[in-house]
């Protein structure tokens, strides 16, 4: 038996923490990439897509009405601006607050890691993070998040608590993978006739690096970087741990751990996601339009999230159905 409130906190703890990692990842890659950008590429060109990926283009416009896009501003807004609820700092704060509420459900080692991570970050981000120090900070973030999830795998009972933790982490990861691919792909490949040809090694390398998939991709595909292979790898490759396919499989496994609700909708929603990913090849996806395909994936992912909320977290059926003894 598990309290809904506890389950929800575990889920959000993991989701926020995964988001912390993802935010650091895309910022990190962009910062590095910026250093070697071709002439004629402006800061705005570099950083606008990133705002689109994390869905903060409007937020940015609100914070900076002059519309000027600079690296320092983007880093500040996404990393540490306290007024931006979606920034890395606030995500980490929420992850830690959720963890505090479930302290007796996660191992001491997990709690201490996260708590220490938060305290250090809070201290570190008291001052503005300059771009030249950003890479170092993001590397620290990756290490801490990896330690936390590593500990969760090595110290948590494979109980419902573990299931909700994994669901939070994998859902957030699938969401971010889909967004990164969607936004980058269209910026890099305005012309669909180029789908089969090798492209800008650095640009596409950056895309794969922001998904921690560069080396694995290189090992798998020796033909340079081809958009169709990238799509296959990032969407469908079941063994690549950030692919949509991999995330979904993990979510299906996690779902087995949290217990089935006969009246619930989660199983159905997971099936809808599975249906979307199976029986298609990269070519089919590109033919129907990658953007449309990923968009549909995100819609189904949101449906899943909604079902999880109503099946497991809002356990309050007014009519007394779902009462167990």
């Amino acid at each position: 038996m598990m309290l809904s409130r506890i389950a929800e906190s575990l889920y959000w703890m993991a989701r926020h923490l995964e988001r912390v990692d993802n935010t650091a990842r895309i910022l990190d890659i962009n910062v590095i990439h910026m250093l070697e950008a071709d002439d004629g590429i402006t800061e705005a060109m570099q950083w606008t897509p990133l705002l689109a990926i994390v869905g903060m283009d409007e937020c940015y416009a609100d914070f900076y009405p002059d519309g000027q896009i600079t690296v320092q501003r983007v880093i500040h807004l996404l990393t540490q601006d306290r007024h931006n609820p979606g920034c890395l700092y606030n995500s980490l704060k929420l992850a830690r607050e959720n963890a505090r509420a479930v302290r007796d459900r996660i191992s001491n080692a997990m709690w201490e890691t996260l708590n220490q991570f938060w305290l250090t970050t809070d201290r570190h981000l008291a001052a503005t993070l300059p771009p030249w120090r950003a890479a170092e900070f993001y590397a620290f973030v990756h290490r801490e998040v990896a330690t936390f999830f590593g500990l969760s795998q090595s110290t948590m009972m494979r109980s419902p608590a573990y299931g909700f933790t994994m669901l939070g982490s994998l859902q957030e990861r699938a969401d971010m993978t889909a967004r990164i691919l969607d936004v980058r792909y269209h910026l890099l490949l305005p012309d669909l006739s180029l789908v089969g040809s090798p492209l800008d090694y650095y640009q596409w390398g950056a895309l794969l690096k922001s998904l921690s998939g560069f080396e694995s991709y290189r090992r798998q595909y020796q033909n340079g970087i081809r958009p169709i292979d990238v799509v296959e790898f990032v969407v469908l490759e079941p063994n690549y741990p950030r692919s949509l396919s991999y995330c979904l499989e993990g979510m299906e496994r996690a779902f087995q751990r949290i217990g089935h609700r006969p009246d619930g909708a989660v199983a159905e929603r997971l099936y809808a996601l599975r249906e979307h990913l199976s029986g298609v090849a990269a070519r089919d996806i590109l033919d129907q339009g990658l953007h449309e395909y990923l968009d549909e994936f995100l819609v189904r992912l949101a449906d899943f999230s909604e079902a999880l909320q109503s099946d497991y977290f809002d356990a309050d059926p007014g009519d007394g159905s779902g009462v167990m003894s």
Partner: protein
Amino acid sequence: MLTPFQSAGLGRLPAHSEASTIAFHEFYGDDFRPRDHYLPMWEHIQIAGQQMLRAKTRDAHLALHSEGVTFTVYSDTDEGIERVWPFDILPRIIPASDWTHIESGIKQRILALNLFLKDLYHGQQILKDGVVPPELIYRGKDFRHEIIDIDPPHDIYTHISGVDLIRDEDGRYLVLEDNLRTPSGVSYMIENRIIERRILPEFFARYRVRRVEHYPALLLQALRHLSPRGADAAVIVVLTPGVFNSAYFEHTFLAKEMGVELAEGRDLVCRNDKVYLKTTLGLCQVDVIYRRVDDDFLDPLVFREDSALGVAGVINAWRKGHVALANAPGAGIADDKAVYAYVPEIIRYYLGEEPILDSVPTYQMTDPQDRAYVLDNLQTMVVKAVAESGGYGMLMGPSSTAIQRAEFTRRITENPRNYIAQPVIQISRHLCYLEGELESRHLDLRPFSIYGSGIEVVPGGLTRVAMTRGSLVVNSSQGGGSKDTWVLAD
């Protein structure tokens, strides 16, 4: 009918004064040698030297820190500060014969107070017989009209109590107050023992100390005993106000030790006069709630409607007998500080026995003569708000300022039922190892008792120490510390 202690005549007796009396010393006898039961420990300290105490103290603090044994101090400025539990490594030792006296005295008191509560919420015979003045009860903040005629399981109201004891200048154990609502501190009693045993195994080897760590098992047993659906089917929860409560550590501790859920009000819901836990697999019926939420906040439908900490409908479920609540709502009237003065009479009335443990002389502020005397002598008095605990709302006469005394004079005059006064008692002292020195500090004792199929007093308790030299205030919320408490087996 008045008890000897609160008769108006007391006001004209020679008052206690700091100069004329010296606090009893637990450790040293009158000849300035350690008392017999401290000799084995003292010999050990002399052989090992103070160096050892220093190292052990450091170990103890490190252990408490890393384990996160903390409590929260409320302050006006923010939501509370988390502090590491202050712990003195020298144990307080209680000989077996003292304990027999304490134990039988507490059992007698708890038994009588439960009969009293049952009577107050049913026929009120004790009021009709004029033993306790009715207006004292009716005007008491913690008398709950809403629960009159409800029959709690087995007629038990105070499943868990923590009666505070002090020792007066002659070493007599006196009851300072009966904590019958949601007394806290039991987790620290156990943590103190765990730390002490790890830090000072060599001390333990020289004594036969009775165990205290089975408290959560006793509590679980008592809670299961209350289950409307039988002990085996019992679903039990600890109800906490949440992470910002000063005793949150303890709530977590008890839930973990008993292996039951730690729930907040929002985790529970009532349907058809039954209480359910909101779980990931649906609603799950709850049989017993060990609630650490005050009466006021327990049920917004019955008590304070602005409470977000409680469960709407829980009192009705309790009335119908579908859920058990520990402690019962309304139990607080029996530890009201103004009712306290009548406890000896209450014991005589229900049990036909003389009280085994004495009480502290208490002045009723509703009595004009008592009040006049107290207001004239505030400097030698402790004034307490009757419905407060934790050392809040209290005036310590001897250390008070003129402004504070004026403030209390105003408050007492405005609302006399809300205050009582007691002469300052020089409560007993004990040797403590503080900041590298052996020093004497005042302390008290809170043993914990559980009323299940019978009344059990766990042999030990929380000894609280005033960390400031000369201070008589031991509350953790006021900067007090603690000691492990050893009750000897023989």
